[in-house]
């Protein structure tokens, strides 16, 4: 591998002669073909048949083909040293991979997105925060920004959330390229870094959320870090970015502090006081939010346990396949990153600082599980550094002899496909519908307090309006949340509800309450719980049947998508 650098690469030949290489039409043609395939596949995505293997399995084969062809185009353009065409194929890949989250859905993906919109709604309605109610009210950066933008322009927060993912990725394309340049990568290599970050970002942390906003701000911060490696430059701008991060997200600033601390110890960061300034800002804000975090177990010094994901149940076979694919992809990426760092070390090229960025996020596992999400954040944060470390080797390999370039190009295409599987594997489980969102908003406004708006099992557009704060405030200290899923509270995960005992266990929960329960069961819930192995496929059908024949419940509302039962006084207090 060390001989690669000495060989005259195709890109170098192109530069040397100043003439376009023969076959220069292949890249543009592949880009055009990829776009055409994607445009043909796009209209069918919204109506694709539900599959345990995700959207790629039942969408038009042209959908995945478009990604693969575009990845080939990118590899060829990098090989040929055609920067503009490589950049075009990168932008196209981002559009192809991320735009469907907006144009092929009616409302934002993921039930938990709506919790964020509830905070925005509360700010707009009350002109203040409900400090201490939950973590979102304590770290409100994105939510205050959205409320402010929405109030000034009239654009609804739901629309902002719906278009958030493609806009965020569009911004990241350029930010990661600029980060690569700031960290002294050649233009083409920086473009490859941007490609790696974009194409391998399977982790689905790019929906409307504080962490996605934090990723954008982090990219800006890392640009400042990159240009300040020899002499401190624009450090106050970096601190502005960091302060915005601190007020927006609970975890990301601490990864940056850890990374900067290691860089400072290794004498790879200027100015050295920067990390202390960062600690001061983060510490002060943490102290301000101390009452908010007291109710959560923040620290957990069990790295292995902290690395477990929050999906504790065993999903269907398709979910396990997707999970295996993304695990392989993650391990492959980290292994390639280690190999690239070793090559850089042997060639006496600088690699330590980018490697610190790549692997410092693992330190988070030493102190927090972050509700089972830490491992996803570790991957996401490590993508910054991995892109910087891996890009030089990948660029050289793509521009090397065909014996190297061909297998590497195939690996790139496979990695892009694997990442797409990771991103779209849970598509059907995570979709929401307009009817569900509207009903969730109506219900939250209509149910008197005290009352329980409880899902039988995940998943439902949660807490979509600011009135959720009133419900939480009405909950007795230490009491169960008004909307905590029944199967979790009754410890009935995996139950088929085919026995009276299981049903009565659920009833005892509702009967022990002093206010009516509005029990929600949806078709989407059945898909989600089946996919993640929370409940057998027909469990909620069995539960629905039992509820319909139980005189202690009435049907509050029933549609083709969901049914809501309301408990009667006969149930309340009947433990």
């Amino acid at each position, binding site marked *: 591998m060390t001989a690669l650098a000495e060989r005259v690469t195709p890109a170098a030949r192109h530069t040397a002669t100043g003439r376009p290489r023969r076959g220069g039409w292949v890249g543009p043609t592949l880009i055009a073909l990829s776009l055409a395939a994607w445009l043909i596949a796009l209209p069918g995505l919204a109506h694709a048949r539900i599959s345990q293997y995700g959207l790629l399995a039942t969408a038009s084969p042209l959908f995945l083909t478009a990604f693969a062809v575009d990845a080939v185009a990118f590899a060829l353009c990098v090989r040929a040293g055609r920067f503009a065409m490589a950049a075009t194929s990168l932008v196209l890949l981002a559009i192809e991979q991320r735009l469907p989250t907006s144009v092929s859905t009616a409302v934002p993906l993921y039930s938990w997105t709506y919790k964020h919109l509830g905070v925005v709604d509360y700010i707009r309605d009350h002109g203040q925060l409900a400090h201490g109610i939950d973590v979102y009210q304590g770290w409100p950066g994105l939510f*205050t920004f959205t409320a402010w933008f929405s109030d000034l*322009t009239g654009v609804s927060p739901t629309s902002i959330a719906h278009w958030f993912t493609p806009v965020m990725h569009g911004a990241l394309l350029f930010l990661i390229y*600029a980060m690569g*340049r*700031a960290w002294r990568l050649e233009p083409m290599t920086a473009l490859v870094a941007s490609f790696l970050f974009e194409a391998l970002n399977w982790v689905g942390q790019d929906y409307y959320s504080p962490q996605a906003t934090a990723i*954008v701000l982090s990219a800006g911060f890392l*640009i400042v870090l990159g240009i300040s490696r020899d002499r401190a430059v*624009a450090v106050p*701008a970096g601190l*502005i970015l960091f302060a915005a991060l601190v007020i927006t997200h609970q975890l990301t600033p601490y990864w940056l502090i850890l990374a900067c601390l290691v860089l400072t110890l290794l004498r790879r960061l200027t100015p050295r006081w920067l990390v202390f300034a960062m600690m001061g800002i983060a510490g002060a804000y943490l102290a301000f939010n101390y009452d908010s975090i007291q109710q959560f177990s923040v620290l957990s010094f069990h790295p292995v346990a902290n690395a477990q994901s929050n999906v504790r149940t065993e999903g269907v076979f398709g979910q396990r396949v997707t999970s295996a694919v993304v695990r392989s992809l993650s391990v492959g990426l980290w292994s390639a990153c280690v190999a690239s760092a070793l090559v850089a070390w042997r060639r006496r090229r600088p690699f330590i600082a980018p490697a610190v960025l790549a692997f410092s996020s693992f330190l988070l596992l030493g102190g927090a599980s972050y509700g089972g999400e830490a491992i996803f954040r570790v991957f996401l944060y490590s993508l910054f550094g991995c892109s910087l470390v891996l890009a030089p080797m990948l660029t050289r390999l793509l521009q090397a002899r065909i014996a190297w370039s061909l297998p590497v190009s195939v690996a790139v295409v496979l990695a892009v496909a694997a990442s797409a599987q990771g991103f779209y594997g849970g598509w059907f489980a995570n979709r929401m519908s307009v009817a569900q969102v509207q009903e969730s908003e109506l219900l939250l406004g209509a149910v008197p307090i005290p009352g329980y708006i409880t899902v039988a099992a995940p998943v439902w557009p949660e807490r979509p309006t600011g009135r959720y704060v009133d419900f939480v405030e009405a909950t007795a200290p230490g009491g169960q949340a008004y909307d905590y899923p029944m199967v979790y509270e009754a410890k009935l995960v995996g139950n088929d509800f085919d026995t009276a005992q299981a049903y009565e266990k659920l009833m005892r929960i509702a009967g022990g309450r002093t206010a009516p329960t509005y029990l929600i069961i949806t078709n989407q819930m059945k898909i989600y719980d089946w996919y993640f192995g929370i409940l057998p496929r027909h469990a909620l059908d069995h539960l629905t049947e039992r509820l319909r024949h139980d005189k202690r419940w009435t049907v509050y509302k029933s549609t083709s998508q969901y049914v809501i039962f309301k408990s009667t006084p006969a149930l309340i207090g009947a433990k």
Partner: protein
Amino acid sequence: MSSMTTKLAAAAVPRLSAWAVAGGTCGLLAAIGALPSAARAVLLLAFIAAGPGAAVLQYWARDVPVIAQRALVPVVGLAVVILVVSVVLLLGWWAPRPVLLALAAATVGLAGVEIGRTRAAGR
């Protein structure tokens, strides 16, 4: 990795300041409630993308490479808006339009002062 582009434009100070003035003006216009929603959204986005970030970075314009400037101006602008709006809310004040007007005026003002200072230094 080779050394990074060292093209540090000597004329960067007026250019970033000019961006800040243009962005700040968009912010002032976005505060006009009579404009259609789409127009206000475009103007406000232009303000966030070009205004506050350029006003901050104009002080280091000679040291920050052009590509980094182009990337940092929008993201620093976003950070400034997030910070200001959030801190104002945490202080118990929610007034989107006055906050926008103050931010936009500050952006234009800072850029104007810097342009004046640069011109005075150039004479």
